[in-house]
């Protein structure tokens, strides 16, 4: 067996390198089996499953209220948005109209999550490129958002603030004030990101034209979110299938056509500006009302199939549920954006250098628990 592999290596003149499962730039326990020709990456074979917890199977033995809290553990950086997807699905299936107040608050927290997630992505992207200082700049601003979360929801990373029919509790009295302080603060800090990293010649050289992927490929690989929009694929669920309060706000869908790492980078930076815009429009207009609809303690969805999609921080997150009318679902399928995004990695990074693979991986912003579920 071993000899065969060695023989294969010699014939192919390839040097197999296991990047991961423990590696600084795979951001988790992802294993990439890469074949090298010198410094050039010939082929990338992602091996996932190191953090597989069987969440979809577990869901079959859990009530809908419990499923919500499992979706936290997928993409932990867009925990609130994942929760929202399940809640929207349940509300849709039971045809409950949630109060406007709930919609507004959910949208605000979603956008704050997106900001926090993109800030962390920016930190990690800089680290992948070797610029270690970015990490502290990004975390400095992310901390402010986490403080807002902590005050209102009680959680910093996993908020668990949603429940079917509304929210767990009402917002903290300081909520709006804090956000109104944060927006001008971050408007001032965001240009620093450009000064430190975007404008840097080395950074530009490292990302321009690296890991390109065409719009057709993006669509056929199902790459969504900022990574898909970097190639010109208009896939923003917030814009095209608005949910919660997204139909009440003005914002632009950021589209770049280059499809390289720099384009994906710029999409995320521009999305931070857009998120700020959305927050600004919503924060003063939160309507008065209840924070939740009274629900029955046991939720039973009518028999049938349901699908709900939302725009998570890394792309389209979908929940598909088959219900037989019981309190447990028959089957749950979670469409995680990272899994599809990872599948296109070979398409993007093959033929480039090892350092480029790291940069492309960084520009995809992978969260590994979301891939393995």
């Amino acid at each position: 067996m071993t000899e065969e592999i060695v023989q294969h290596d010699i014939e192919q003149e390839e040097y197999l390198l296991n990047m991961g499962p423990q590696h600084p730039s795979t951001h988790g326990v992802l294993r990439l089996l890469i074949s090298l020709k010198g410094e050039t990456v010939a082929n990338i074979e992602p091996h996932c499953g190191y953090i597989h917890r069987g969440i979809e199977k577990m869901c079959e033995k859990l009530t809908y209220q419990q499923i919500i809290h499992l979706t936290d553990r997928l993409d932990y950086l867009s925990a609130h948005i994942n929760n929202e997807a399940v809640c929207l699905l349940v509300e849709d299936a039971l045809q409950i109209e949630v109060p406007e107040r709930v919609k507004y608050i959910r949208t605000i927290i979603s956008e704050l999550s997106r900001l926090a997630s993109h800030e962390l992505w920016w930190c990690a992207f800089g680290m992948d490129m070797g610029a270690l200082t970015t990490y502290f700049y990004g975390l400095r601003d992310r901390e402010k958002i986490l403080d807002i979360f902590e005050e209102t929801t009680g959680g910093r990373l996993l908020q668990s603030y949603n429940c079917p029919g509304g929210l767990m509790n009402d917002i903290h009295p300081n909520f709006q004030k804090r956000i109104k302080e944060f927006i001008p603060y971050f408007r001032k800090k965001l240009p620093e990101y450009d000064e430190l990293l975007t404008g840097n010649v080395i950074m530009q050289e490292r990302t321009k034209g690296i890991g390109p992927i065409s719009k057709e490929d993006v669509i056929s690989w199902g790459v969504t979110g900022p990574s898909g929009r970097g190639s010109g694929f208009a896939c923003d669920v917030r814009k095209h299938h608005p949910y919660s309060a997204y139909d009440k706000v003005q914002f632009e869908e950021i589209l770049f056509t280059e499809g390289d790492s720099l384009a994906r980078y710029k999409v995320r930076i521009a999305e931070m500006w857009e998120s700020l815009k959305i927050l600004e429009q919503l924060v003063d207009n939160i309507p008065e009302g209840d924070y939740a609809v009274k629900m029955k303690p046991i939720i039973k969805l009518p028999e049938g199939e349901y699908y709900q999609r939302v725009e998570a921080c890394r792309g389209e997150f979908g929940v598909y549920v088959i219900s037989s009318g019981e309190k447990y679902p028959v089957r749950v399928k979670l469409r995680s954006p990272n899994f599809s995004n990872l599948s296109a990695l070979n398409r993007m990074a093959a033929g480039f250098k090892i350092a480029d693979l790291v940069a492309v991986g960084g520009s995809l912003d992978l969260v590994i628990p979301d891939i393995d579920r």
Partner: protein
Amino acid sequence: MAFSIYDLTAFNQSIHEALVQNLSPFWALIVEMTIIGLVFLLFYAIVGLFLVYAERKICGFIQNRVGPNRVGPYGIFQTIADFIKLLMKELIYIKNADKFLFNLAPFIVIIASFMAIAAIPFGLGLHAIDFNIGVLYVMAVSSLGVIGILLAGWSSNNKYSLIGAMRSGAQIVSYELSIGLSLVTIVILSGSMQLSTIVEQQRNCWFIFSGHIPAFIAFVIFLIASTAETNRGPFDLAEAESELTAGFHTEYSGIKFAFFFLAEYMNMFIVASMAATLFWGGWMPFHIPGLTSFNHVMDFIPPFFWYMGKTMVVIFLMMWFKWTFPRLRIDQLLKLEWKFLLPINLFNIVLMALVVLMGWHL
């Protein structure tokens, strides 16, 4: 006997005479060499520890943090605590490693940097060996370290280490050229390769001012190339944490890792002191020709402090690069050298020769 901190020649002379009077010439020489060796060893350790501390503080300053602040006042004993930790750590032996080369590699790296320090003039009279080819010697010895890095990468039997070592080899072979040529530019200006002569010639005006444009270009190139030579960010491809985990020293632990770590800082110190010696006048105080009273004030600061101050400024510049720039890719790194630095350098040498011939220098 009265000693002056401005000129330690008399001090050294008195020790030498005392030894010769009491011992045979052979043993006097042995004792002198031992003393110098011990002094350098001590100096090496202190500077190494200080630089690690300084790096962490400066990096903290750049990154909006405090840096080490728990062990001792302002955390000054942090590096000592870390060093003790490294000493006590288990040395992990790798099964299929080439044991002899694996153990040898850190010593080659550290010996190379230790040898280079001997030829550096720290002050008037503080100069262990004054070669007449001092510049060439420092160049030659400091580039020996790459052999240790290559051996470390090869003998670890680790793929990341090997890639890191190969990168390091390619990098140092290329950047050695730039360092050499930028030093040649200064050698043309001074007409000597002896470091004491070079320092002496900068009594009235440092070379970076007297050589103006070509000297400045040479300085910038030297700074870039020496950052690359010492494997520091943005040229830290041999380590490249995000790509190769830790590059050539992935498999090293405990004191052997500490050797690599210390050697990195000492190499940085050596290239910084070369930059200070050749471009900023070494231990020579800052003089402006004509301003006698100002020059007297400058003379009041002892030469050793001038030397250390300049070296620290260069080291600060190198740390600044590391903590703000992203890392280059290997092909960009080589392109930068062969397509930009080398042609500019060659042109710069011609320019310097022209400046010297026409007497345009100050």
